[in-house]
């Protein structure tokens, strides 16, 4: 069922969810300019599950961070749902992220002092939902990732796989437009990694979530519908 290395499904007339045009990112250190991403074009359509691969240092994380609106490009345009996010101010961007992006990190990045419930609830603190509505949503999300019975556990009382499930529930909770995952299985053993990948595939299949995932693992990349290769800041293949 792998659809790796296929071009974007060019559904004519459909607007891409993510439209990247002429994107460059470079760092300046002293009088040295370090190019990380060079004049990059990419479209991602709603409902896609994209795997981003490439050697270490090729700029995968940088690209993902730019799409997720936590970093600013040096030049070029990133449109997500038609909004040029590079043009947004800091606080507009924060609000935009809270509504449109769900994050999954390699090391889970849960708040150590909050329970699984509290961690999943965290993004909802930025909404106007009532306490009861929040509780209901968190319960649903925890059920989806199979952790209903661990709601009151702190992160250090959970296994790595369980922590990543909590993180996935947190990424889902605001019903975002886009989910970004940077090596979500990088810290997990093979069996646990398969479970997490299965969960991500379900989010894409059953809930229609658009997912962009950075990974080093070809097995993980196989679960995606489309594979993008990045090398020295340029898309290949």
């Amino acid at each position, binding site marked *: 069922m792998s659809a790796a290395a296929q071009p974007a499904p060019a559904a004519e007339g459909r607007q891409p969810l993510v439209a990247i045009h002429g994107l460059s990112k470079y760092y300046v250190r002293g009088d040295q300019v370090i190019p990380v991403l060079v004049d990059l074009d990419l479209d991602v359509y709603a409902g896609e599950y994209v795997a981003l691969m490439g050697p270490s240092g090729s700029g995968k994380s940088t690209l993902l961070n730019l799409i*997720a609106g936590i970093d600013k490009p040096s030049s070029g345009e990133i449109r997500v749902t038609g909004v040029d996010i590079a043009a947004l101010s800091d606080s507009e961007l924060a*609000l935009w992220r809270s509504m449109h992006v769900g994050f999954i990190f390699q090391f889970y*990045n849960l*708040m*150590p002092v909050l329970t699984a419930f509290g961690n999943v609830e965290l993004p909802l603190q930025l909404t106007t939902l009532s306490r009861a509505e929040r509780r209901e949503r968190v319960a649903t999300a925890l059920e989806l990732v199979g952790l209903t019975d661990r709601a009151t556990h702190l992160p250090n009382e959970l296994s790595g796989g369980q922590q990543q499930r909590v993180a996935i529930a947190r990424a889902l909770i605001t019903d975002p437009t886009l989910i970004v995952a940077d090596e979500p299985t990088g810290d997990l053993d093979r069996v646990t990694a398969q479970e997490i990948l299965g969960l991500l595939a379900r989010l894409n299949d059953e809930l229609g979530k658009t997912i962009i995932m950075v990974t080093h693992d070809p097995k993980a990349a196989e679960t995606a519908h489309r594979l993008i290769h990045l090398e020295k800041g340029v898309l290949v293949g």
Partner: protein
Amino acid sequence: MAIPLGYIARNLLARRLTTALTAGGMALVVYVFASVLMLAAGLRQTLVSTGQDDNVVVIRRGSQTEVQSGIDRSQTGIIESLPDIAVAADGMRLVSKEPVVLISLPKRATGKPANVVIRGVTAASLDLRPQVRLVEGRMFRPGTSEVVVGRSIATGFRGTDLGETLRFASRDWTIVGVFDAGHTGFDSEIWGDAEQMLQAFRRPVFSSVIFRLADPDRFDAVKATLENDPRLTLEVKRERQFYADQSQALAKFISTLGTGISIIFSIGAVIGAAITMYASVASRTAEIGTLRALGFSRGAILLAFLIEALLLGLIGGIAGLVGASAMQALTISTTNFQTFAEIAFSFTLTPGIVVASLAFALAMGFIGGFLPAARAARMKIVDALRAA
């Protein structure tokens, strides 16, 4: 739209020892700060409550205290003839001419001499000071060398027990009673017969005249009458004001000195809070990056760390206040340099001091927490996330 308080408070709890030590440092400063203010408040309260509202004190113009004052019999006669003086149920006019002198007695604890007020009193004196009650022995007999001592004298000075004799003004005076003046300045006085005192001290003049107004609203008129009379050189004050004025300088001295010391100490506590908060920010860099990624703004991060620092200050403030409130059990005796006489008073916690101490603690937290919080808010998200 902000980071939940539970998250902030739990981070303080997670670092229990650091939190306790930092808050402890602030608690010590608040303890000193509150104690000193309580001392000043206690002094002020003792002296203010010494005066009665409708009593009037008359002293010689220009003399700050009764000890410095002198009023001869021709002038006291004019005062006594005022029609505004209240009359007791038994027909006695409520006016008293009193000599006030200082003698030196050894303190019970140290043996060091301190000045004590001797007041010659009359039949009307007790009616003028209803707060004074005899608690041991009996009242002195007029026309004898007997005295009664205030409660703070009896507990604070040597040779002042019931039945002992005090030697002053070339006479032996027998202590026949102890009185309680309800934590007012009179507790630090020795009372005997006014005429006996004048004779013994060979003084031709009284120190002050105290009387009760029949109509308290007539104070201004009475004051004008006495102060404008060309035969008199007198100053007229409400008794409450008279004693309140005596507390001003010492209370101000205590609170200024104490506040100054507290502020110097607080620099240490603020640095401690800043170090703790910097450590808190550093150890949670990845968390800060994650919160920002999830959509919490720079302002929310700044606020969260400021609240954390304020909570730290609040814990310190409450702990310091609890410690300071235990001081209320203590009575302090010291020389009031306005009257040169020893005065006993207690640490007194007032609502104003509670508010001031908590504000002081919160200010320490805020100042200590501001730079670390600003650093947390300034971080770039990608840099913060890389710190994982």
